[in-house]
């Protein structure tokens, strides 16, 4: 693991992975989207609206997984001062927020035909909304400091505090939801058949590789930005050192 603390080492491997991740993301989207949105069977109860599931469920899975990835990266950064782990956590946050937003929007669009309303305080929708606020808090704290390094450490601590709270909030929201609403409102999950699982997994794969590819791009540009910053600094320092000699 510490081998990857060296940005050059890390980027060598990341650059090798990148074409595969990007390629697989494109291939899976190209094959998965038509299957999910056109050729997969319509549900006998929900009709064509069931197709939203293939966008919604993978987004929900990604939203959660990315939060855990972010927390793991933050932990590695805080414990071992692992600089690349911090970059991965920082680069993951906007993607996680994006997937959470996608999940919420799809969920609302799905809720309208299914429940007759865009929003219900369903346990899962509610916890996803709270997760979205966690992401927003993380992003806001990260760039609230003059000194970017302080922002890194503060937001890493926040990510860990958040990950401890995720199960507590899920439990509370579930409990609250069963207290206030009849269970009939929640979608009854029928057993999924193979022709529904295929597009689901294709889309989940497409999302994951998309995340991986964009993550690599983001980490790479962070590293380049740091390099430019350092070059500028040393240029300025060089000027100042040179001036008295003139």
């Amino acid at each position, binding site marked *: 693991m510490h081998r990857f603390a060296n940005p050059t080492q890390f980027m060598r491997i990341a650059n090798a992975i990148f074409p595969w991740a990007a390629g697989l993301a494109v291939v899976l989207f190209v094959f998965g989207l038509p299957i999910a949105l056109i050729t997969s069977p319509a549900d006998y109860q929900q009709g064509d609206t069931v197709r939203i599931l293939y966008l919604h469920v993978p987004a929900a899975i990604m939203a959660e997984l990315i939060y855990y990835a972010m927390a793991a990266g933050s932990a590695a950064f805080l414990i071992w001062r692992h600089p690349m782990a911090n970059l991965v956590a920082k680069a993951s946050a906007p993607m996680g927020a994006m997937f959470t937003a996608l999940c919420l929007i799809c969920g609302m669009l799905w809720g309208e035909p299914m429940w007759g309303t865009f929003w219900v305080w369903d346990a899962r929708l509610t916890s996803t909304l*709270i997760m979205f606020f966690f992401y927003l808090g993380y992003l806001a704290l990260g760039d609230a400091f003059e000194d970017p390094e302080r922002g890194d450490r*503060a937001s890493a601590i926040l990510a860990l505090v958040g990950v401890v709270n995720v199960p507590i909030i899920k439990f509370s929201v579930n409990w609250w939801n069963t207290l206030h609403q009849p269970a009939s409102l929640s979608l009854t999950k029928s057993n999924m058949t193979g022709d529904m699982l295929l597009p689901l997994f294709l889309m989940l794969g497409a999302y994951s590789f998309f995340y991986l590819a964009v993550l690599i791009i983001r980490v790479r540009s962070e590293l380049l930005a740091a390099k430019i910053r350092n070059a500028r600094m040393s240029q300025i320092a060089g000027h100042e050192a040179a001036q008295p000699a003139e």
Partner: protein
Amino acid sequence: MSVFSALLARDLRLALRQSADSLTVVAFFAIATVLFPFGVGPEANILARISGGVLWVTALLAALLSLDRVFTVDYEDGTLDQLVLSGAPLPLVVIAKVLAHWLTTGLALIIVSPLLAITLHLPMEGYAPLLLALFLGTPTVSLIGAVGAALVLGTRRGGVLLALLVLPLYIPVLIFGTAAVESAVTGISSDGPLLVLGGLAVLALTLCPWATSAALRQAVE
């Protein structure tokens, strides 16, 4: 332990000398609660229905407003650096400061809450659970709030940011705090939610001081 009691005594003395701070928080609690009848109408049955939730939400917001006091002044005048460098166990320092915060705000909120409950027509059965729930829940609010307050030290726009960080973490306390009142009003035992609130308080007391210490360390570095 002497550090603990000395710090607690100091913070309490400072809070007493500037008692206007605590009073302002209580006044905010009152005015925010009083806004609700204007918003939803003065019908007694509607107010009674929402009173538990309204009191909890306004209490959380009032506590949130008081959080920047916990560390900001010490951070700005350098006391916090001294505390971190003093060698005293930092989680203990944090607990002393949080306890002082709770005694000067949480307790004040609990004391005025029955008065505000009267204006919202809270049914008689709801008073005891409301007080118990606030008593068990507000320490958690102070503990979680301290983590947020330590994280935003030295930021631009600290206050609004603090709300964004801390309010999502308050949701479990809000859920079970309100549930304790509501279940008592509807005639169910409120033991369950109260026990969960107690559990949350113990969990917060176990974890939050460590997180707050970590946040303070990186703030004074």
